[in-house]
């Protein structure tokens, strides 16, 4: 690292700076969308389908319309001219803004009621009488894939996309892989282990459900939309496209966003519909999801059933890995839906060098859409791979850490290593990371302790899993592979931006294009700029999420913000430093090359007493008549950063669990994570991201189950039926890291938002399977709720030992 402009000697980067956003959030003074009260604001509520699949015979809104305070009831006919919901990857059936003749999942919006109050809107929605004719739903993934019954009569198949090998056909990277694996299976000295596993559907359930307020200004012909979204710029573009407006006609603001985890990385029909209602009624219109709306009508994650097969020799060398899967897309495709399995494929072989071959069928079912949920495809990929590797290790009787080590891409292959589909990876040292974990926990002793506890009659298990993930998206050139945001009037791929403006008093405003939802950008971005300019963090304010003031940015998701927009901001700060150095040199009568920024100002290298403050520099910048000849006034810079690659963080996790054999209750005794996200800007924030990430992965392993009933009902409408893990359910995490900086951005940072989730579910399940192995259990599907674990124990005991 190093900016080339006399970087401050006191390192702000890498230091713990307390999250600057917390005081307001903790004191309740932060502004969320639902806090917003605009004069004359109306409220929307939705009439939602109670059926998974039904035709709509009639809708009678007369009673609702007669109610005091109800202003309007809109149905599909009113909004048909706006088209389907804008969608980035438009493959499969797109979502109508409101259901027309048919509903295709429980919770689908059928009508929107707008009223003076939210209570009135709810009363109105309850009074709308919809006559449904129920139809048989398609819910089961294998049934859906078989096309025995169609989800959408006008589609030839429920399989909206099927692929094998790689995203671009059987080409580079995977040529001959299928044959190689088939040959390995034929060999007499190989063992093949195969397991079908469910990676269940999950409901994202951020603490703040989604909320949106649209305000159409008839005079200016302009929308101002506040939304709890991760992608304000895409939302603005989606609204502009839908209503035939230009980007300057739509201002989207994402104020505080109380968690997103990917579910706010979508433009939703309700966001479009409140805009429509505001235009029609001439008043601002608010819609705030209830938890019930959030559970059934905001995107879900995961939802795969797949068979993972490992073939290798008895000494632990893996010769082939295959995954045959069906992924549930739900009834309609939204933003990324069909692209999620591809994200998994990128890390389909993990950090291993063995031949890997995936086959995937993406199917529609009569359920809510699936899309990006923390990790998005990568947790699924890591789960299948690491469960299968563990099963293979158990089968051949080799320690699971040894099997992993034997098959890693060696550190010596970096730079230049590539994934099984030929995608280049940035940096990696997997063995070092695994060793660090094993050494930290005292692996051999820990195994001995486990064995001792077992000998005492306890069901104790150790689980290990390692991962590589891909994030920090990414290169602008992804546009050429078809990954662009053009549907939202954003021509870019995934590049980032940052703007640094020195105010006239010498403080700095940093304006970024991402839309954070709790990741602490106001802190880390200030650290980046402080590091480069020597302006103290307290004098730097970071703002984001307002399309009228931020430079174009894609949003906060895919653990991309620090690597991409952080790097852009770093470059913008360097541009400011270059100009400021000239200004300081002018004031100090020195050469700009000798200027060093530190301690809130600039001085001449070697002469710390010859100094000017940032306020002096700014004053000069805004008094153009005093400037040296040829210099422009003002002091701000904007940079756009397009990295040459995504980033590839990795890590090794270990869990120690105990199972109560009488009840099936699983207790997580220890959880140790050794993550590598490259350079760390703020260790406290990185730890926080891992904490939350682990909780979500462990949540999938132990608690959460968003699967629908076979009749298409979703019985998970609240936290009573859908338990999320809380701090009380989790052990105190033991977090450690190795540091392997990336070489694709100037900060050397990789991204840590999703790593905890990607690494953890399989770690816990491997531990539980290890605990139950003495009883003959080889597999239990998630979530490992007591009932399921107990049933697995019963089944193993009745069947005798399972092969």
């Amino acid at each position, binding site marked *: 690292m190093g900016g080339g402009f006399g970087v401050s000697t006191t390192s702000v980067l890498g230091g713990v700076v307390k999250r600057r956003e917390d005081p307001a959030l903790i004191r309740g003074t932060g502004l969320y969308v639902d806090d917003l009260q605009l004069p004359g604001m109306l409220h929307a509520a939705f009439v939602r389908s109670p059926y998974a699949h039904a035709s709509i015979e009639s809708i009678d809104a007369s009673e609702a319309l007669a109610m005091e305070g109800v202003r309007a009831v809109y149905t599909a006919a009113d909004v048909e001219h706006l088209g389907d919901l804008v969608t980035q990857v438009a493959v499969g059936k797109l979502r109508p803004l409101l259901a027309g003749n048919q509903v295709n999942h429980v919770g689908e919006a059928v009508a929107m009621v707008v009223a003076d109050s939210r209570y009135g809107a709810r009363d109105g929605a309850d009074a709308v009488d919809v006559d449904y004719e129920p139809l048989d739903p398609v819910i089961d993934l294998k049934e859906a894939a078989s096309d025995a019954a169609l989800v959408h009569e006008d589609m030839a198949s429920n399989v909206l996309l099927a692929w094998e090998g790689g995203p671009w056909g059987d080409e580079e990277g995977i040529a001959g892989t299928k044959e190689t694996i088939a040959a390995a299976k034929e060999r007499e000295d190989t063992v093949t282990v195969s397991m079908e596993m469910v990676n269940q559907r999950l409901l994202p359930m951020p603490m703040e459900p989604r909320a949106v307020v649209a305000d159409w200004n008839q005079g200016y012909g302009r929308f101002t939309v506040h939304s709890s979204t991760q992608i304000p710029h895409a939302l603005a573009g989606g609204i502009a496209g839908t209503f035939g407006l230009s980007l300057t006609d739509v201002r989207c603001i994402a104020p505080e966003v109380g968690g997103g985890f990917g579910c706010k990385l979508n433009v939703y029909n309700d966001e479009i519909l409140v805009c429509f209602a505001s235009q029609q009624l001439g008043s601002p219109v608010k819609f705030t999801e209830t938890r*019930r709306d959030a559970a059934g009508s905001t995107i879900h994650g995961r939802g795969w059933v797949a068979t993972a097969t490992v073939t290798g020799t008895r000494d632990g060398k893996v010769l082939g890995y295959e995954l045959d899967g069906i992924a549930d897309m739900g009834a309609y495709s939204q933003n990324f839906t069909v692209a999620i399995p591809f994200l998994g494929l990128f890390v389909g072989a993990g950090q291993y060098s063995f031949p890997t071959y995936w086959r995937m069928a993406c199917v529609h079912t009569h359920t809510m859409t699936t899309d990006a949920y923390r990790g998005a495809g990568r947790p699924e990929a890591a789960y299948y791979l690491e469960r299968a590797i563990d099963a293979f290790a158990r089968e051949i009787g080799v320690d699971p850490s040894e099997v992993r080590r034997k098959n890693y891409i060696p550190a010596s292959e970096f730079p230049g290593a590539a994934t099984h589909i030929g995608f280049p990876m940035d940096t990696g040292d997997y063995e070092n990371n695994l060793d660090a974990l094993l050494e930290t926990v005292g692996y051999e002793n820990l195994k001995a302790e486990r064995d001792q506890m077992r000998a005492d009659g306890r069901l104790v298990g150790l689980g290990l899993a390692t991962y590589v993930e891909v994030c920090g998206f990414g290169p602008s050139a992804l546009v050429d592979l078809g990954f662009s945001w053009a549907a939202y009037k954003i021509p870019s791929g995934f590049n980032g931006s940052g703007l640094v403006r020195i105010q006239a008093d010498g403080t700095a405003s940093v304006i970024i294009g991402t839309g954070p939802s709790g990741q602490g950008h106001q802190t880390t971005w200030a650290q980046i700029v402080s590091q480069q300019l020597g302006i103290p963090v307290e004098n730097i304010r970071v703002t984001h999420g307002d399309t009228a003031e931020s430079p174009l940015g894609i949003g906060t998701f895919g653990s991309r913000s620090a690597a991409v927009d952080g790097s852009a901001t770093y470059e913008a700060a360097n541009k400011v430093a270059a100009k400021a150095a000239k200004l300081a040199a002018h004031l100090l009568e020195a050469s700009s090359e000798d200027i060093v920024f530190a301690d809130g100002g600039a001085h001449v290298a070697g002469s710390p007493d010859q100094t000017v403050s940032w306020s002096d520099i700014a004053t000069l910048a805004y008094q153009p008549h005093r400037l040296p000849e040829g210099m422009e006034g003002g002091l701000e810079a904007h940079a756009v950063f397009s990295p040459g690659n995504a980033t590839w963080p990795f890590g090794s996790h270990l869990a120690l669990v105990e199972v109560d054999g009488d009840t099936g209750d699983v207790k997580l005794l220890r959880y140790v994570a050794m993550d590598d996200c490259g350079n760390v800007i703020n260790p406290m924030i990185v730890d926080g991201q891992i904490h939350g990430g682990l909780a979500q992965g462990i949540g999938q392993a132990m608690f959460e189950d968003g699967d629908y009933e076979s009749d298409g009902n979703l019985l998970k409408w609240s936290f009573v039926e859908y*338990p999320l893990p809380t701090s*009380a359910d989790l052990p105190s995490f033991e977090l450690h890291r190795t540091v392997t900086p990336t070489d694709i951005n100037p900060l050397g940072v990789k991204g840590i938002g999703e790593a905890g989730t990607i690494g953890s579910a399989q770690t816990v399940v491997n531990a539980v399977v290890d605990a139950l192995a003495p009883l003959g259990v080889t597999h239990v599907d998630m979530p490992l709720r007591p*009932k399921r674990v*107990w049933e697995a124990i019963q089944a193993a005991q009745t069947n005798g030992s399972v092969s």
Partner: protein
Amino acid sequence: MYPRSFEYVSPGSLDEATSILASTDGAKVLAGGMSLLPIMKLRLFSPDVLVDIGRIPGLSSIQDQGDHVGVGALVRHADTASDPLIAEHAAALATAASWTGDVQVRNQGTTCGSIAHADIAADQPAAALALGATMVAASANGTREIAASDFFVDTLTTALEPGEILTEIRLPKQGGGSAYEKLGRRGGHTDYAVAGASAWVDLADGAVCCGRVALTGVGPMPTLAEGVMESLIGTDGSDAAVAAASDRALEGVTVLEDLFGTVEYKSHLAKVMTRRALQQAIAAAM
């Protein structure tokens, strides 16, 4: 999450409260609101009038009343869980209260509210049954006492009449030892019971002389497991005797399946929890 409209009244005395209840159709008592408000927000239940008993004086204490301990209508779960009198005479109830919900719920919800609500998977009703509590109900017509064994009538249904307020539960000072065990829906002791059992046992001359066992989470309502005690009384309370007795836990109980357990699983758990609760109660009684 937005309830239908309703009226709210906050009487300042018990008499005022009972007279409002007697004269108002569709009125419902509001205590801590931890069960009532969620079902109203889901519009599963929409009373016309809420009678908040929270400002009535004299209902917030746990008192030694000679041969029993009285727990007033406004005593919160957190108080029940930490009170020394309850710990001494009704340990099972203290444990059940300490495992009810989370900190916020325990600071807001009331022990009497939990018992009056009678959720099929609630913790404290089982303890009240096993401890042989007496419920005191007040209405415009006066006050009456109801034995715990007569109190739980059906799913979410108690012997309380619409105009009655449960003003106190009385826990007998009866010696012996008591315990509560459960497997929570979230695992461990967290959340409502997938299955729970409470036991009170007394010993005389090295033999079990009397006791009660109550189950929760498995059937339509908290229920006394009479077969268990029949089997246990007269034995030495050894692990073997307890195990044999626990096998009778489900006599007379209709086990219901829910999201958290099949009939088979819950039946098994009921026996496990009965065994564990009995072992602890016997140990405490010794």
